[in-house]
């Protein structure tokens, strides 16, 4: 084998070629280098990036052009001289006649399996060398053409990587959860659209939460210290996020250089959990209240009974007798409160409905709300007609309690609350009207939804109205609300009048 010592010219050529990774650049370069050869008239490069993407690079009037082709070139992998098929093909592409032609197919390794052709690239050289000069020409050209194969491979890889990179970025941006990659100084190196819509490159805490230092509860500090995955919870405005931070180390035993943080919005989940806990708490308190009520009955019996004994022993009308009377009345009030409490906190409401007087039910509910009503002007108008309803007492009292309590909570000090019961034909009506803040039109349709509340987190579960409506509807009635923002609200319960005696 003849060992050809590479000339300085070739070495320079290869050097420059290595630095090129764009197909157009490569074409321009080889055109520049090879057109200086004697007898070469034109150089064209055909290159295929995928099944439907076949290009030809050529020079026309000293301008570099590129064109998409709908025809593919020959799949012959051998170098050819003056091949008719090639000439026709090239003439067709360039729209001009083609003379003597050298065809150099290049087998370029493509990563993209979609390219079906076995000859992804061809260099066509138009020349005017004579038959005797051709061999010499080809010999020289080979050393220049063969390396182009590798340059094209590199170009292809670059394009592939670029499109892969775009594909990755699109996937990254497509993720619903915010993700941010930071360095150990919290600088955001890369993030997806969910993290930040702008391309602002700053510290993660600045971009995400608008803060000047790490978020409260940020797990990154620990990740840097321990070199291990950490998770913690942070707040951003009114939203709560679980932040999962993963360390990236160049070598396993070296310090953490980069951290990937994945944010999961758990606001809704936490909210629901909070409400469930609250509901649970209320259930426990209800149970406790029931127990306490029972416990109170014993000493209360003693107080009431002894008062009765003493009353019988002193002179009627005497001061002592009157005092004892007052003690007895106070004891009776205690008894009422305990009865109401026990009814209200009943864990096993009777499945049976009973015919009850709505006025009595209202009185029991109001007994439990005395302190809430203290600072308000409360007017109670109970109908004198017989107004009986068929309801489960424990549940109905809770409904009345709920509506009146809502009214009290919505009304400022010295505000007005009006409670009315009346009979309209075959319907018993209960109304509670307040002079409170009213309900905004936008949320009117939501107020009966479970868990909907306008109260602070620990002040209510948002279940009151939803349950009340359910209960009233189960008794064949309905709850109606009229409200004007800033003026007040009126809640109305309409129930069918019950026949029979309470």
């Amino acid at each position, binding site marked *: 084998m003849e060992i050809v010592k590479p000339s300085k010219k070739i070495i320079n050529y290869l050097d420059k070629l290595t630095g090129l990774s764009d197909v157009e650049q490569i074409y321009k370069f080889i055109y520049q280098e090879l057109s200086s050869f004697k007898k070469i008239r034109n150089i064209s490069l055909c290159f295929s990036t995928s099944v439907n993407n076949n290009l030809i690079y050529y020079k026309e009037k000293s301008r570099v052009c590129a064109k998409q082709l709908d025809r593919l070139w020959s799949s012959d992998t051998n170098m050819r001289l003056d091949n008719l098929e090639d000439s026709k093909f090239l003439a067709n592409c360039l729209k001009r006649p083609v003379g003597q032609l050298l065809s150099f197919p290049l087998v370029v390794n493509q990563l993209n399996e979609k390219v079906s052709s076995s000859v992804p690239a061809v260099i066509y050289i138009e020349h005017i060398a004579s038959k005797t000069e051709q061999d010499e020409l080809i010999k020289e050209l080979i050393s220049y053409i063969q390396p182009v194969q590798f340059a094209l491979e590199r170009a292809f890889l670059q394009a592939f990587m670029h499109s892969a990179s775009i594909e990755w970025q699109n996937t990254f941006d497509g993720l619903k959860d915010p993700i941010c990659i930071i360095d150990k100084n919290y600088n955001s190196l890369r993030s997806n659209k969910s993290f930040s819509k702008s391309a602002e490159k700053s510290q993660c805490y600045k971009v995400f939460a608008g803060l000047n230092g790490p978020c409260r509860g940020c797990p990154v500090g620990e990740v840097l210290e321990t070199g291990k995955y950490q998770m913690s919870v942070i707040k951003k405005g009114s939203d709560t996020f679980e932040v999962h931070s993963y360390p990236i180390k160049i070598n396993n035993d070296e310090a953490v250089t980069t951290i990937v943080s994945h944010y999961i919005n758990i606001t809704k989940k936490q909210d629901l959990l909070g409400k469930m806990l609250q509901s649970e708490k209320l259930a426990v308190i209800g149970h406790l209240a029931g127990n306490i009520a*029972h416990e109170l*009955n014993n*000493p209360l*019996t*003693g107080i*009431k009974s002894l008062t*009765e*004994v003493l009353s019988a*022993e002193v002179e009627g009308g005497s001061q002592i007798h009157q005092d004892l009377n007052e003690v007895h009345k106070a004891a009776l009030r205690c*008894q009422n409160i305990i009865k109401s409490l026990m009814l209200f906190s009943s864990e096993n409401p009777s499945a049976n409905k009973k015919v009850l007087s709505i006025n009595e039910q209202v009185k029991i509910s109001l007994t439990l709300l005395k302190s809430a009503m203290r600072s308000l002007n409360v007017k109670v108008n109970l109908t004198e007609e017989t107004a009986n309803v068929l309801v489960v007492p424990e549940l109905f009292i809770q409904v009345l309690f709920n509506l009146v309590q809502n009214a009290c909570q919505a009304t400022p000090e010295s505000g007005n609350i009006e409670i009315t019961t009346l009979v309209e034909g075959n319907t018993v009506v209960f109304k509670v009207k307040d002079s409170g803040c009213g309900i905004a039109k936008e949320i009117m349709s939501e107020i009966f939804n479970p868990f909907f509340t306008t109260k602070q987190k620990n002040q209510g579960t948002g279940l009151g109205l939803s349950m009340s409506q359910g209960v009233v509807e189960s008794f064949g009635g309905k709850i109606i609300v009229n409200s004007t923002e800033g003026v007040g609200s009126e809640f109305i319960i309409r129930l069918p009048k019950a026949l029979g005696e309470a």
Partner: protein
Amino acid sequence: MKVLIIDDESSVRRALQRAFTSRGHQASVAIDAIEGESLWLVEKPEMVILDVLMPKMTGPQLLEKLKDFIKNYPVKVILISAYSGEFDTKQSLSKGANLFIEKPFENIFSVVDKAEELII
């Protein structure tokens, strides 16, 4: 009549004792079922007012314990309780009691009335 009052609430014991005494009856008190048992066996009262829920031993448990003793002499038992739901009337009567009264009493003297009615 001779009455024995067994209840762990002191104000209730005193109220019942005073009420019975003011009507001319003889009334002793016991602070729990254990003391109650001893007094019952010794004094053999005609009427026993027995609280249901007491620590260490409940009223019904005491009744069960003295089942045979009670059968063998004329005695009436009234069970009293603040816990109405958990102990219904039928149950109390089947355990050897003659009457069940809920606390708080409508009127303390009504208890004395009911006891007197039972003895007649």
